[in-house]
Every structure is written in C-alpha cells, then in structure tokens.
C-alpha cells in the first residue's frame, strides 16, 4: 500500500488559487464520496482550510492515484487544471506522513504553532471516518498526527503565547506606533478574523474602535461583540478612515474596496500621520499599490507570513524541538508502515513454523503421553519458545528494512519456505497482538 499526498498550501499557491480550491464550499462528504468513486484511492482524507487543501490517499498505484487526485481537484473545485497544476505539491509514503505530522504540529502553518490546525486535522479525519473513506493506513496516520500535535503542544512552547495572524498584526502596529493607547482603530467588515484581530487590539488599550459594515445591523452586532466599540454606516467610511491610525479590513467583497487613489485622498489631510492597514480579507480588500503611499503601511494576510517567519526564527529552539518530536513519531509510524509490507509474509512464516511444531508434537504424542501433564506442558512451552526465538531475528529484520529490502526478503522467504498465499490470508491476529506489545 502506498501513501500519497497531493495538494496546495500557502507555501505553494498564492491567495488567488487558495481561495478557489476550497473543498468546504461543496462540503467534505461530497468531495470524499466523489474521490472514492474514482476507484484508484483505497482510503482518502481531505484537509481543507483557508491555508491549505490537501488530499491524503492510500492506494496501490501511486502514479494512477496521483493523476486521479489531480483530476479530481480540478473537476470538483472547477478551477482549470492549468491554474492548479503548477502549484500542486505531492509527497509519497513517509514524506507524506512527515508533512501531515508537521501540519498537525503547527509547523507548516502560516503562523507557526497556531492552535487551530490540530482541530482542523481532526475534523478532516472525522469527516472521512463518517463518510467511510478512511481505512487502517490513514487511520493510523491521522491518529499518529494527533499524537504529534498533542506532544508538540504539551512538550514545547511552540504554540504558547499569542502567535497568530492577529498577534502578528498587533506586534507590527506596536513597531509603527509604539504605545497603542490613544490610537483609533477602524474595522471594515464584520468577519470572525477581523473581530479576533480587533479584540487583540482592544487589549492593547486603543482609544476608539469603530466598526464599518455595509449593513449597519451587522456593524452594530460586531461592535457589541467586541465591546466598547461603536458602529458607523458605510457612507461614513472615509471620515472614519481619516480619523483612524489602524485599519483592519476583512470584508467579503469580491473587488478591492480601497484603491490607491482613494487612499491618497484620505491621506492628504492627515499630513504625516501613519496609517497601518491590515488587510486580512480573502480576496483582498485593499489594492496592493496603496502600500506605495509614503505613510501607508499595508500588510495583507500573505505579508503577515514575513512577520511569522521572524517569530519562527525567534522560536528556533522550539521549532527544533517540535521537529524532533515529528521525527520521533515519524520513526514509529515508519516502522509500522514498512512492516505492513511484510505482514503477509511474516504471518505465513509464523503459521508454517507453528504448523511444523504442532505436527511434530502430534507425531511424538505416543512418546510424550508417558510423561506427567506437568512435563508435557513444559515440552509444549519449550517448543513454542524455540519457534519464537527462531522467528525473532527475521521478524525484526523484515520490520526494520526499507521498502526495497522488505520486498526482497519477503520474496526470498516465500521461496525458501514455499509459503503460499493461503497461509497469509488467515489468522492475522497474533501478529497484531505482538505489535502492541512493542516498547514505545
């Protein structure tokens, strides 16, 4: 069984592509069903957030599955193949596992260590489990990734502190204005992200906060939710902007609502008072060229990535520790994943040995029957132990080898011991019990 990941993330695709490749629009269950119906994927989980859309698949033929998944992405999201294909990244087997572990740990997030992603990965797995598109390989993979996420959260301080888009925005505002008390903040739109950033600003003791929205009721509701903020109608946008130091824009508008020319007009009477614009809307609310105005500091959600990299560098030691947790868990998963290739051979081998032991015991039964029951039990135990010992080294060798050597060993064992497929098909249980007793 091969493990395959095909998808886009904020590292590979610009905002324009990411906002179009969103499986949540039509719903994950529908997407999973559609993917499963194509046949090449034995198991499938889709992780779709605003920063990534990744399809995890367990399959027999990685090449066929890759083509299938790529076609599925373009057909399901209705984004032309030529637009998506250049941004697709793909990982196979352990690279795919490592990627998911890093995602779950928050290491691949836009804001490193951000806490939401683990929940989103869990939801993705739950959706797949409910749609019955997941199976033993992806179940094991995702449960391992939850363990990684949990360990990173408890054993490192990667996720501690306010490392998020909104925190990055607040830190930037402080580098421009110093103390934020006495500053006026305008919030355009009434989305969750805008509200979150506004709340962060609020804790910094800003002077006045005004919510502007196309619908006054919406603005009033958001203002109430933030607390201590006032609402203003859309018609007063320019007045509010003129009196503000910080603007958080997060509308759902399809077109930019603030152009460079418009902002130049607003900036003129302000003389030199800097204006910090945080454009966290997708698609963007503010024309990129507006950042060219001398005292306008414009950051969109992609730009905040730069500030995050800075946090990443500052928390380099934490990142290193988190990465080593990823590597540890990956090693465990790798052992399991590789050993999966050897399972049929190992089971067959074990059954062959056990069969020999039993037949020999039966053959010698007439000699053993003279012994007291105690001694007979000892004989049974000793022969069992001999078989176990004989199997121990080959089993370990098979489990620890890489994919190629596992194949070669399995082939050799099958020939040497004339193992048939019938042996492998039944009685998988002993092996699994054995696995669980492995030291962690």
């Amino acid at each position, binding site marked *: 069984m091969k493990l395959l990941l095909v998808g886009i993330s904020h590292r590979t695709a610009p905002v324009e592509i990411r906002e179009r490749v969103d499986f949540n629009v039509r719903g994950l269950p529908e997407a999973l069903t559609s993917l499963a119906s194509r046949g090449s994927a034995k198991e499938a989980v889709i992780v779709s957030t605003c920063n990534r859309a990744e399809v995890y698949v367990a399959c027999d033929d990685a090449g066929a599955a890759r083509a299938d998944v790529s076609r599925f992405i373009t057909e399901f999201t209705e984004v032309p193949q030529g637009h998506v294909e250049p941004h697709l990244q793909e990982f196979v087997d352990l690279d795919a596992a490592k990627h998911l572990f890093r995602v779950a740990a928050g290491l691949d997030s836009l804001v490193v260590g951000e806490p939401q992603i683990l929940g989103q990965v869990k939801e993705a797995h739950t959706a797949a489990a409910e749609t019955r598109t997941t199976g033993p390989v992806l179940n094991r993979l995702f449960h391992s990734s939850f363990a990684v996420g949990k360990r990173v959260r408890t054993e490192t301080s990667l996720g501690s502190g306010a490392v998020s888009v909104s925190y990055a925005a607040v830190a930037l505002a402080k*580098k421009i204005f110093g103390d934020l008390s006495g500053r006026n903040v305008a919030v355009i739109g009434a989305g969750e992200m805008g509200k979150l950033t506004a709340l962060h600003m609020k804790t910094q003791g800003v002077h006045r906060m005004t919510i502007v929205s196309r619908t006054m009721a919406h603005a009033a509701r958001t203002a109430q939710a933030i607390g201590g903020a006032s609402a203003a109608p859309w018609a007063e946008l320019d007045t509010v902007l003129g009196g503000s130091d910080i603007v958080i824009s997060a509308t759902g508008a399809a077109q930019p609502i603030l152009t460079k020319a418009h902002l130049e007009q607003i900036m003129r009477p302000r003389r030199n008072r800097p204006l910090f614009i945080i454009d966290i809307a997708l698609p963007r609310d503010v024309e990129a060229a507006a950042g060219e105005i001398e005292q306008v500091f414009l950051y969109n959600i992609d730009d905040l990535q730069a*500030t995050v990299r*800075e946090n990443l560098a500052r928390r380099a030691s934490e990142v290193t520790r988190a990465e080593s947790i990823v590597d540890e868990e990956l090693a465990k998963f790798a052992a399991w994943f590789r050993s999966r290739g050897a399972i049929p051979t190992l089971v067959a081998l074990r059954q062959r040995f056990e069969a020999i032991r039993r037949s020999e015991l039966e053959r010698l039964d007439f000699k053993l029957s003279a012994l007291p029951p105690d001694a007979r039990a000892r004989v049974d135990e000793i022969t069992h132990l001999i078989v176990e010992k004989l199997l121990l080294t080959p089993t370990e060798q098979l489990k620890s080898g890489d994919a190629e050597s596992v194949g070669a060993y399995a082939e050799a064992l099958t020939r040497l011991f004339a193992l048939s497929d019938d042996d492998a098909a039944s009685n998988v249980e002993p092996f699994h019990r054995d696995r669980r007793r492995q030291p962690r």
Partner: protein
Amino acid sequence: MNAIPLLFYVGAMLAYGVHFARRHPIAGRTATTLLIFGALAHTFVIGMQTMEFGHVPVAGATSAISTFVWLLALSYLYTELTTDERAMGVFILPLIVALQTIPALRPGAEAGSDVLKGPLFGVHVSSLLFAYASFALACMIGITYMLQFKEIKAKHLGFFYQRLPSLQVLDRMNHVAIVIGWIFLSVGLVVGFVWAAQAKSYAAGSPQVQAMSIGDPKILVAVVCWVIYSFELFAARLIGWGGRKTAYLSLIGFSVVMFNFVAISYFLTKSHNF
C-alpha cells in the same frame, strides 16, 4: 589625557555592538557601565583642563572636539537612561570614538588667545557644542528611523525590526533632539554675532576678528545649518514632510555640521582658527 576616556569609549562601542547583535542583557549593561566610566573619566579630564586654563577648554578646535564628545556622551547617556532604550548606542559610539581619537592623538595645549576672553565667548561655544551633540543624536535617531521604516515598508521584518524602537518613538525622539539642538544653535549663533561685534572694538587688530563676516566659510556654513534645521523644524512638518524625510534632513544637517566642525575648522576658516 584624552586617551583614557577613549579606551572606555572603545570598550563601550564593542559592548554595544555585541549587545545589538546578540541582544545579550549582560553585554548591554557592560556597555552602559563602560560608557559611564568613559564619561566620568572625560569629565575629570575636562575638569583638570578647566582648572589649568581657568576656563572650559573650548577655544581650540581640538579641545572643542573633546568637549563636544563629552557633551555627546552625556546627552546619549541621559537619553538611554530616561528611555531605557539601548539600541542607539551602537550608532552613537562609533562617532564618539572617531571624534575622540582626534584630541587623543593631538594633546596640544589649549590656545590662550587674548581675543577669547569674556563670558559671551564661553556661552557661544558651549551652546554650539551642545547643539551639535543634539544634532548628532538626531542624526543617529534619523538613521535608525530610516532602517526601521525600510524594513517595515518592504515587509522584511528582520535584523533592525527586532532591535529598534517603534517609528513613532524614533520620530518623536528625533523631533525633541532637533528642537533642543535648534534652540542652542540659535543662542550660540546670536551670542557669536554679538561677541564678534564686541571683539571688533577691543581686538580689532586680530586677523581672526577681521575675518569675521558672513563670507567666512565657518560662519556661512553655520548659518546654512541653522537654515536646514529651521526648515526641518518649522516648514517640513507644515508642508507634510515627516517621518522619513525629516530623518533625511537630520542626516544632511549633521553631515554639514560635522564638515563645519572638523574639516572647515582645521583647514578652511580664517575667523575661527584659534
């Protein structure tokens, strides 16, 4: 004698450098301590010279530089201790070290020209030296503003972003330094003109006093400095210049000040070559 404070300044410069690069608190405290010792040693040197000559050693270009460095060190220390902001040290100390090298290498005796007597002369020189120290601080603050501005604007929040105070704080500090500098520059210039007029009556034979006119490079450039800083202070903000442009002006203004203070004093002026 000027070599002793210089050694402390060099040590402080290195420590500020280490503190800025590694952000090690111990390096920062060491830097400030070394600078305080340097300033104390410098105070002692200037005190000794004052006792020796009977006035603050400001008459010759070399001793004026030493006194300027002393004022600059004290002004910077005052700024650092009141704002708790050490980042500027790495920009100020190289200037202090470079300038202090001049008096350390030229330990000439203070000129005792008879022309340079009277309280007005003392006020003239001390005011100007203090103004220059303020402009030096303003210039360094301006440079840090430009570095910080560049990183935030270019969205590459890197080395300086981590280490420098906010734009608004830098802008305000720059403004305060310019205001103080401009006041002392104005006082120094006015007193200088008054003193020159008086000197013409009691020391008319001196070639320096004869050369004292607006046409002399030293005086002309000093007036140019005053024009630059007056523009920065009053006009620039009115016409909507601010932030980066005033930071540029601080840099240009101080370059002119330094040119006047060092190059013109030693080589070009006929009126101020005491």
